[in-house]
């Protein structure tokens, strides 16, 4: 199959489960809720950053409106869980709402992506930014539905399903990490498949694949849809965590966050953005505990990476390691 690369699939599944089990043991070894919070946020934001890196790292498209899909996932989940239609499903309501969140984000990504991929370079970036801000404005304008600038008010029920009660911290922790790891394993398959190599080919030389009868636009659109759907999934997890959704998640500065993570972790290694999310969250936790001037520190760190290291940490480590 075009999207599957069987060789490493079993290995990846095994590694993924192993990491999941280790993190579950970690939960009991370190009972500090602060640490649990950081780990689950790293996975949520890591998914968000990894989805963006499909476009940036593998396709070379600097999308600057990725938070649109994060927010659409969050709002879709929240609104459906508040609606009678989904909450009547009782124990199935959360899985259904999450599926709908991914689906709606995927449809949104199809519509926006189909228009955006016609443009190149900076024009592509600006169009994604414009669409994202348009969605931000729509969220603010539809006060009756979205709660406007207050965010989605009133919370929503989180009924247990399959014995998982997301109201409990441990269930949420295990569930979020499990979903994230599954998604990462699937994403790995996509990236290592012929389709994934097609993306790299378009990035490195867009004329050559076109000359070989390769449909660049189709590949770009599919990548855009996958990226948008995963961002929507990350948004829905974030909404479950916060029991709400906020318009700032659709603001342009939210799109800058995954860019930072990609920069910090590295865009040329598969898990780079996840590592970036880890650095970002640890930095966030450490700095906000010690000073009010979070932006100042983050800005200086980014400056060091941009001008000093010139690549993400994981990229740098892998290059060092391979040389030896």
């Amino acid at each position, binding site marked *: 199959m075009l999207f599957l690369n069987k060789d490493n699939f079993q290995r990846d599944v095994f590694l993924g489960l192993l990491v999941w089990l280790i993190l579950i043991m970690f939960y009991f070894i370190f009972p500090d809720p602060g640490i649990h919070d950081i780990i689950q946020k790293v996975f949520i934001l890591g998914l968000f950053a990894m989805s963006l890196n499909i476009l*940036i790292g593998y396709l070379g498209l*600097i999308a*600057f409106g990725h938070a649109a899909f994060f927010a659409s996932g969050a709002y879709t989940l929240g609104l459906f869980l508040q609606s009678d239609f989904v909450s009547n499903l009782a124990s199935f309501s959360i899985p259904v709402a999450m599926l709908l969140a991914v689906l709606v984000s995927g449809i949104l990504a199809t519509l926006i992506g189909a*228009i955006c991929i*016609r*443009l190149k*370079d*900076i*024009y592509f*970036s*600006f*169009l994604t*930014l*414009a*669409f994202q*801000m*348009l969605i*931000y*404005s*729509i969220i*603010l*304008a539809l*006060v009756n539905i979205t709660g*406007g600038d207050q965010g989605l008010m009133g919370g929503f029920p989180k009924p247990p399903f399959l014995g998982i009660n997301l109201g409990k911290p441990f269930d949420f922790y295990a569930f979020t990490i499990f979903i994230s790891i599954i998604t990462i394993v699937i994403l790995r398959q996509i990236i290592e498949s012929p389709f994934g190599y097609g993306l790299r080919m378009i990035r490195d030389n867009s004329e050559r694949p076109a000359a070989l009868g390769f449909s660049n636009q189709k590949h770009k659109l599919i990548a855009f849809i996958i990226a948008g759907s995963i961002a929507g999934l990350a948004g829905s997890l974030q909404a479950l965590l916060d029991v709400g959704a906020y318009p700032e998640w659709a603001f*342009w*500065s939210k799109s*800058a966050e995954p*860019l*930072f993570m990609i*920069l910090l972790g590295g865009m040329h290694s598969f898990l780079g953005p996840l590592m970036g999310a880890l650095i970002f969250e640890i930095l966030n936790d450490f700095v906000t505990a010690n000073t009010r*001037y*979070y*932006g*100042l520190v*983050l*800005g*200086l760190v*980014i*400056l060091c990476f*941009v*001008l000093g290291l010139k690549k993400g940490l994981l990229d740098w480590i892998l290059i060092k390691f391979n040389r030896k």
Partner: protein
Amino acid sequence: MEIFALLDCIISPACLLSQAAGGLKIGMLLFLVASGLTLVFGVLGVINFAHGALYMLGAYFSWQIMSITGHFGLSVILGALGVGIFGLLFERILISRVYNADLLVQILLCYSVVLILDDLVMIIWGDEFLSSVGVPEVFQVPPLFIFDAIIPPFHLAIISMSFIVGLILWFIMTKTRFGRLVRAAAVNPKMLEALGININLLRACVFMLGSFLAGLGGALAASVGSVVSGMGNSIIIESFIVTVIGGMGSISGAFLASLIIGMARSFGAVAMPLFTDGLMFLIMVLVLVLRPQGLMGNKK
């Protein structure tokens, strides 16, 4: 959407005129800032994400100078000049290192400077809103009534001042040797270098001019609104919109686009108060889809 409110406004001379004047004020202030952004992009090829932070710096500088000297004109000019000098250092120390880097690196470098400056002004001036510098005494007169439309004279002053700055900019770019060099640098910097022009000096000058314009916009904004950290974060997006609609690198395009956005904001506030910002982004999307090079831009 309140389409009848808009119709009512258009057929009433008082409303039409005051909204138009309001739109002109917004548009012309925006033009000051956006023209700097588009100039820098046109010549240096860098998307200066920190342009809004320079605007904020202009507001703080002029507030500070005003509180020391109490002279309005001095505070605006020195504030803008201060930002120009700051921009020169910014270009020499940081931006000049990433001219050949890819877009992502340039964006992140500029954005890190935004984060740093937003916090620095809080450290220096505190995180409270600073009340506006205030309108100079000459303009502290009752507003003009033209066809019953209320028009503050200071707004007219801002409009005419921005207009004059635009004219000066146009004159510099089209009639002077410096302007010709700048336009040549936008087309073929290597050839210019081969002809013995110091391209680094030219770039630094252009960046300084762009920063000066951002600072001027900020200094004028400080006279009508409050000064606060992060105030550049909305103007930068509006400047991007203007730059894209007008055509990236085109100053005349920025002028036209500023007018369009100013009017869209002013009349949009009447027609759909909750979706005024959305209207701007809608225009941006439409221009990018139908005419990606912008209204006055050249197709590459």
